């Protein structure tokens, strides 16, 4: 008997066990959507993100985004020469004039979110810009357009689905953290220890 045939048999056996378990039982209905009634806008998003341990900055009116971010990073990164890793497809105007480095070595990663949900403080990050830039850097900067902020997580996910889920989507809602050692909160365990959301 070939391995492929074995696999098919196992599959059919499991499905047949499920059907026999359910035989004679009434199928229960789906209760429909859950209304979570979240509050929208930059304010609601910021307060939730800050509760989650992230930092929210709003681009000053009239400022050039790349330059503005460069000045912000001077305050946030305590390195003489911070380097940046930039996500695939991030527009040039959003990239600060700093030396670039691979995500494995860079001090800052730069991403653009597809959307956000205020009720959970969640940023939607597509895998198509590269996942390493979102994960391996100590400080992750995520650009977000005001218009892309949804009140509810469900709406942010729906709009992501319409744009295409692709192979993977990451939802980031705060810096990496753990309380596995003596119940003390530690940030930056594996993923970025600092999350900065830059609102356009």
């Amino acid at each position, binding site marked *: 008997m070939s391995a492929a045939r074995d696999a098919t048999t196992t599959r059919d056996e499991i499905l047949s066990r499920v059907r026999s378990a359910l035989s004679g039982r009434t199928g229960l209905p789906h209760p429909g959507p859950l209304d979570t009634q979240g509050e929208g806008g930059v304010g609601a998003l910021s307060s939730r993100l800050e509760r989650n341990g992230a930092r929210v900055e709003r681009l000053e009116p009239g400022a050039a985004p790349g330059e503005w971010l460069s000045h912000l990073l001077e305050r946030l990164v305590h390195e003489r020469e911070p380097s940046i890793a930039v996500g695939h497809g991030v527009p040039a105007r959003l990239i600060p004039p700093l030396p670039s480095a691979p995500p494995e070595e860079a001090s800052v990663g730069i991403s653009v979110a597809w959307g956000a949900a205020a009720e959970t403080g969640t940023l939607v990050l597509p895998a*198509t*810009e590269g996942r390493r830039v*979102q994960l391996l850097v100590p400080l992750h900067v995520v650009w977000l357009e005001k218009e892309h902020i949804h009140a509810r997580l469900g709406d942010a996910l729906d709009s992501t689905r319409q744009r295409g889920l692709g192979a993977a989507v990451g939802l980031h809602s*705060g810096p990496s953290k753990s309380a596995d050692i003596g119940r003390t909160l530690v940030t930056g365990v594996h993923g970025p220890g600092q999350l900065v959301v830059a609102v356009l």
Partner: protein
Amino acid sequence: MDVRSRDYADLARTIIEDTPGVRKAVSGATAAFDAARRRAYAEIDAEAWRRWAEGVKNHVLTHLDQYLEEAEARLQENGAKVHWAGNAQEARHIVAELAQARGVRSVVKGKSMLTEEIELNPALEERGIHVYETDLGEYILQLLDEAPSHILGPAIHRSLEDVQALFADRLGTAADALPDDLAAAARTELRARFQEADMGVSGGNFLVAETGTLALIENEGNIRLTTSLPRIHVALVGIEKLLPTFGDLAGFLQLTARAGTGQAIGCFVSLIQGPATAPGDDGPEEVHIVLVDNGRTDVLADEHAWETLRCVRCGACLNTCPVYKQTGGHAYGWVYSGPIGAVLDPGLLGLEQTAPLPFASSLCGACFDACPVRIPIPDLLLHWRRAAQARGLTPLSERAGLKAFTAMATRPALYRYLGRVGPRLAGSSLFRRLPVLSGWTEHREPPEPSPRRFRDLWSEGIGE
């Protein structure tokens, strides 16, 4: 892991007597989790959310065959490979064969209770493959060669001092290193393992049938790394983890986080549809989803116990349980502990191996109030107790005590007589040696019984 649930009483006693630090650490950690959960429930209409989640899970479980086929079809369209494992041995075999056929030398793992259940690590190690747990708590336990004691905080039974000593020995950190330094040392060590691993192994919190989306919730980022850096990603998913529609995800992601840690959502959620193909995506070339039964269809067939399969593994029932708190998870003798373990383990393993577990409860009902999918754990504890009773599998002391109670309760005159003398016996050495009470009074002062009988109070009108 070997099933040791039959030794529950001995394991519990040993933990309480020999390692008093465990009770202290577990009580503290679970109290913090439970308080956070209560605050998080208070922010939402928790009752409505829990009823909704119960409804969605009931729907998916009573149409499970259809949703399994739908999930399989979507995943295949997305380019993922779907495998089916009837039992633990088949699941281990599938992963080990995959790894060997692709020349995998090292594996990084995200936290997964199912991989503990099927004992995956030893099966890979037997074939010369290195396996690295990357969740900080799991990493600590791997170094200690211990099993997780809690679904969410696998190492909550270990103190800061324990980790300081362990890391000083194994990673060369200072004996008094702070948690930040300890975590940094683990991060440096594990970052190298991430970079060199050929395969990442994860579990799965949810699998959405409509889109073939595997959802994984975490706070550290190690699961995102596990599912993104190695060229192969293998996810082991219990067949009960399905959700019908993509629209159901938002509710479940939030409710699971609120129930488990009190957060609005986990810091990182991975939504995975398949292997990376788009330019720019540096994710895995291969994604394999292993759908595991291993006793779940037996549970589904049980007209009472099937409700256990709604479980989202948040740990809320452990955190609120006065019995779990005393010992942590190791006393339960298998992977799933606490109230949910006490009703899930008999279903998955059979009562012969697990009979004492449904009795490890005071039936206080706190677990039901905490459960985000409203599993009637107290009713199910009674269900399994009755089943154990019917098959003569009850713990010895319980049997003797119940026999005595039955003898007494079925003889009204004797019942009344004992009711009168009982209170006078309290505090005496005889009271402490009564079969039902000795297990309780060995470690505590016996409660003072009311000097007046319930029967007397009742006939006079209580509280008047």
